[in-house]
């Protein structure tokens, strides 16, 4: 991790305030700074030192919450709902389509670092099931054609 990033992390700590209760918002902000959307070990240690708390507490929080990654993810994190409603609306074929279009398996990251594909618990889009999230944005009522088009539009920069 470059010094420049560590300096930016210090700025975040200063802005949000390094009180114990701010750990979650701090980690969220920091994760967006790091290529691969994750909290590397070194960064977790840096935050722990600056907040004067044990490193284990930072790691515990990172590993507890779904939003934090301890391994690199794609620039576009695709999360497929694997809860009951999407499953009975055939999310299985959505998984197949995504794996085919991205040429990776669920749990992997594309070679160019653009996309990662993971399962996610229900994110409350059951009325437009089957659904996926790409970073914060939800796409629903999916089929193979829609998936091809979403991925293509992200690749050419039409969707962010």
């Amino acid at each position: 991790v470059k010094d420049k990033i560590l300096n930016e992390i210090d700025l975040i700590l200063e802005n949000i305030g390094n009180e114990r209760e701010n750990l979650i918002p701090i980690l969220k902000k920091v994760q967006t700074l790091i290529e691969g959307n994750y909290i590397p070990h070194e960064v977790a240690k840096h935050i722990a030192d600056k907040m004067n708390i044990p490193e284990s507490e930072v790691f515990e929080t990172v590993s507890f919450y779904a939003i934090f990654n301890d391994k690199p993810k794609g620039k576009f994190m695709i999360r497929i709902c694997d809860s009951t409603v999407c499953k009975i609306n055939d999310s299985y074929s959505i998984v197949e389509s995504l794996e085919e279009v991205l040429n990776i398996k669920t749990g992997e990251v594309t070679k160019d670092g653009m996309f990662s594909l993971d399962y996610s618990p229900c994110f409350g889009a059951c009325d437009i099931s089957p659904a996926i999230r790409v970073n914060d944005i939800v796409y629903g009522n999916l089929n193979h054609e829609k998936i091809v088009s979403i991925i293509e539009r992200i690749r050419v920069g039409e969707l962010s």
Partner: protein
Amino acid sequence: LKRIANLLTRNFNKYNPDNFEQFMNIDGFEALIKSIKMNKEFIISEIESSGLMGRGGAAYPSGKKMREFVKYKGENKYIICNADEGEPGTFKDRSLLELDPYSIIEGMIITAFAVGATVGYVYIREEYSYLVNRFDQALSNSRKNGFLGEKIQNIEFNFDIKVFIGAGAYICGEGTSLIESIEGKPGRPRIKPPNTKEKGLFNQPTLIYNVETLTAIKTIMRFGSDEFSKYGTEKSKGTKLISLCGNVKNPGTYEVPFGITLREIVYDLGGGILNDKQLKFLQIGGVSGAIFPAKLIDTPLTYEDFKELGFSIGSGAILVADNSVNMLDFLGAVGAFFYHESCGKCTPCREGNRQLLNIYSRLKSGTALKEDAMNIEKIAKVMKNASFCGLGQTAPTALLTAIDFCPEEIFRRSVQHE
């Protein structure tokens, strides 16, 4: 009986939620302005006599909760709006956040006034981050126009609301876990007592209401408890927001009066089963809810009718499953969810969910042992009775109710391996 009610959802699509003036024109914080001219006792007794029960799932009488909370003293008194709508199959709070954020804020301000709270938190689940800008905007408009902050409407009443965005954890919908999360820690439940009303956030008295409950509080104060309790039945007053989803033609959020039957919900509101297949079962209250076989379709949606069956309405999620859904696959999906979301604090939940998944996979592959059929119920009952919090206690609900109505489908292949 009116099929669709228009009480809590009255403002839906009537104003642009990004436009404060439009909200003021159609609604105008009328309930709030009226409430702060009343004495606090009046508000509490209105909520009590409305018969409102907590809409997050626990169905605790909301007025009683308010009255109990008043007596606790602290440096700060907090109220929290629980918008951590994590129950799979549930999205009605999302509709309220999306379409009528001001009514949630108004419900919080009225509650704060009645109970003497100074700070409010809205805990919005991470998955709804895309709704946070709108909500923040609504808060800042309310502040600018004297509805939040110091000397609200020029009386001696100070109250402000902060937004806390979650980080992705089902367990944080449980009150004490939610509080741990706001404090920056992993969301693991606390032991009770003390109740959060006595010692909650930062060890101060804390009152937690669900998004829909707060909207109902605002609605009751606007139209009166009599108007609210015109809807529903003797024991289940008012209306309920339901999240209808699954193999159904018209999924969505609906506001229904209590007393409507499940048949009316699925076939009249929902338009029936997708591709005109046969109904196999409903799961009500999300993945932690009971499985209703198709033969119970004429059950009225009321607390009392559900209680008689040993079930609960929970969050109001209604999942519709057609006859192509395999029960073991379905239970496997439910089990995988709880295995993933168990916080790991207590053994019955952490290990129980793991063992259930193992048994499901053996039942599915036809390699189950005779004792699996006996153990599965035993494990489920230990989880139900001995888990530390509601997550583990309700994780086996789907299994236990499914065993009751279709044991042959679950255990069909296990006998071969005696």
